[in-house]
């Protein structure tokens, strides 16, 4: 892939032709916030925090930088009134679920997001899907997945798989921005194979 030259925040940036805008920005040391992105995983495009403003042939639009391909002469703005508003409202929407998530709290300061702007629903999970996708793409176990749809969507460990696979892994816990993955796992454990932890701890001790 040949290189392209583009502009990010007024700075001329050279990027490999198969990169996304997010990759190009990061390579050039320009920060774009993300919640559902992880470099080991396929871009997901769900949190929409990485939205930026792009201009091609005089037309301005908002795109998610984790998926938008770089192009010659593309003009990218990672901060603007519109971009900041999108990020602020998204944070306010997510803070209604997980008001104490350190990642969200830190971002809310930068984007002046009001954690109490919308009706609270303490579900804790922000459905970034890091656990789901890590389990599927890296571990190839599919022990945790999304269930339901729309506003009822949640993550759930599949007891049959979790009972076999999760005990010695639990790598997804560290990825979770709200610690909900851990909570969901222990709930599954308590429901699907109660007593195992105690037995496991005893035998280990």
């Amino acid at each position, binding site marked *: 892939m040949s290189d392209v030259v583009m502009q990010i925040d007024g700075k001329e940036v050279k990027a490999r032709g198969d990169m996304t805008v997010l990759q190009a920005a990061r390579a050039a040391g320009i920060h774009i916030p993300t919640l559902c992105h992880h470099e080991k995983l396929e871009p997901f495009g769900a949190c929409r925090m990485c939205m930026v403003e792009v201009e091609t042939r005089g037309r301005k639009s908002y795109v998610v930088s984790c998926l938008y391909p770089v192009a010659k002469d593309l003009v990218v703005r990672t901060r603007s009134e519109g971009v900041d508003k999108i990020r602020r409202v998204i944070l306010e929407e997510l803070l209604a679920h997980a008001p104490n998530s350190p990642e969200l709290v830190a971002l809310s300061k930068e984007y002046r997001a009001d954690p109490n702007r919308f009706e609270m629903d303490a579900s804790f999970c922000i459905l970034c899907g890091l656990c789901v996708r890590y389990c599927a793409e890296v571990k190839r176990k599919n022990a945790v997945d999304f269930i339901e749809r*729309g506003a009822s969507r949640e993550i759930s460990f599949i007891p049959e798989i979790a009972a076999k696979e999760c005990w010695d892994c639990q790598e997804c816990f560290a990825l979770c921005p709200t610690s909900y993955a851990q909570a969901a796992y222990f709930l599954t454990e308590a429901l699907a194979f109660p007593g195992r932890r105690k037995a496991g701890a005893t035998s280990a001790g």
Partner: protein
Amino acid sequence: MTRLHSAAELEQLRAAILSSRDPAKPCIAVCAGAACHGLDSLRVANAFQREVEALGPAAGVEVRVTGCHGYCEKGPNVVVGPAQVCYFEVKPEDVPEIVESTLKGEVVERLVYKHPATGEKAVHMSEVPFYKHQTRLLMGDNTRIDPMRIDDYLAVGGYAALAKALFQMTPDQLVDEVKRANLRGRGGGGFPAGLKWETAKNAPGDERYVIVNGHEGEPGAFMDRALFTGNPHKVLEGLVIGAFAIGSHRGFIYTRHDSPQLVKHIEQALAQAQEYGLLGDDILGSGFDFHVELHFDVGIFVSGESSALMRSIEGLPPEPRPKYIRTSVAGIRDKPSNLNNVETWANVPQIISRGADWYAGIGTEGSKGTKLVSLSGNVVDSGVLEVPMGTPLRKIVYDIGGGAAGGKSVKAVHFGGPMGGSIPVHLIDAPLDFDELAKLGAPVGAGGLLVMDEDTDMVEVARYFLEWLTKESCGKCVPCREGMWQTMKVLEGITKGKGKSGDIARLEDLNDVTGAACLCALGKTAADPLRSMLRYFRPEYEAQIARGDHRGDEAVGSAAR
């Protein structure tokens, strides 16, 4: 059935079908469209069949169970040819009288249309107000066809356009014809179909697909089902022509799992077309192969979104794909996939047989042809209608639909269901046109037109749409899943008299971000209804919020005492 090996054989078959029929003999068409079916029109049809069988074949009366006639309000509908006498709200006990009068060349006066205000009667289809203002290029054949019989479609000229496409035109000419006709997608986006075809045709790869989007999931939209159930071959013929133009040998029909009649008719149409050699290998001896698979939705609205639909066909959950690449370049299994909706495909045969110039002569500068509209809500006459693009909405609502029901006045009309917009009645002279209505904030969408009368609470309307949308979103991206849910919560508060100051700003912020940041078209356009409400009915919102604010003050006051 015999397999046809050439265009000449098709014409011979057509001639044989026509010569076996006497157009002067009475034919009784009983509507079995969704609404009439629900009103037990099959009992009416059975009664006709019994009555006519008793007369014996010598009487020459034919009974035909057809798809939707359009005038759903007055079902069960019966149309008696050749004079096209319309009978409404027909019951099984009316049947002997209708047959007897028909044989005598008379009309059963008590069952014909009577104007609710003037009492004026209308006997023939061309005189009934609901029909007489329409141009029924697509729907017109519905009264002439039993959807289970391919011969009925051949009798009205079916598959002649396919023969023309295969033997007299090149794929490039076909794409060019559709481009020149300026056929725009009827599913909601209004994207030029010819350009889409061209993109799919020219996209790299050996394998490409064509797809019928027959999902039609939004409330208030029922025209695709009426057309597809009533005349499945018209859609299929359009699809085969499109496949030949694009160079596709495999097509998919994606439609509703919960409409058994539709499924039955499509399956029958596919089987009969296959038997006649109008589908499958070596179509009409042309050497062109094309096979079609039928797929069903999984009961969620977002599965009608193009990339979600394609994932569903692949066997995956119907979540829209976030990639910035068009499905016409990389769709099903990353192969070029051209998706058009039912009505778009149904327009193709007439464009090919009558030509792009004829087609482009109908409609407005930017929107050509006719458009199917499903009219419902607080209107006297609901149903499926078809008018040329450019027809003023006033004509649709008042002349065809008879205005607001119950002597009330129209307050607003709403196009496009939960992803459309409402416009106030003072803009009702606006033309039915993709671009004009989009400018007003009520994009045509798929063509569901909802009439709202003076008693309509516009906050409640928006809340209802949002409630529906939150259940139909896939829930993947934040501004759709969370944004719509929070919007619904704010609206719920207002309708319960618990509005707060700042609610309008909250609604606007949520709506702006949903409209700008969502992953797919469902989310992005989900912002449209509320945007149009805040544009035209803001005082109503403010008044309701103020009521809540006021109540809040009282509560605080009493608590302080």
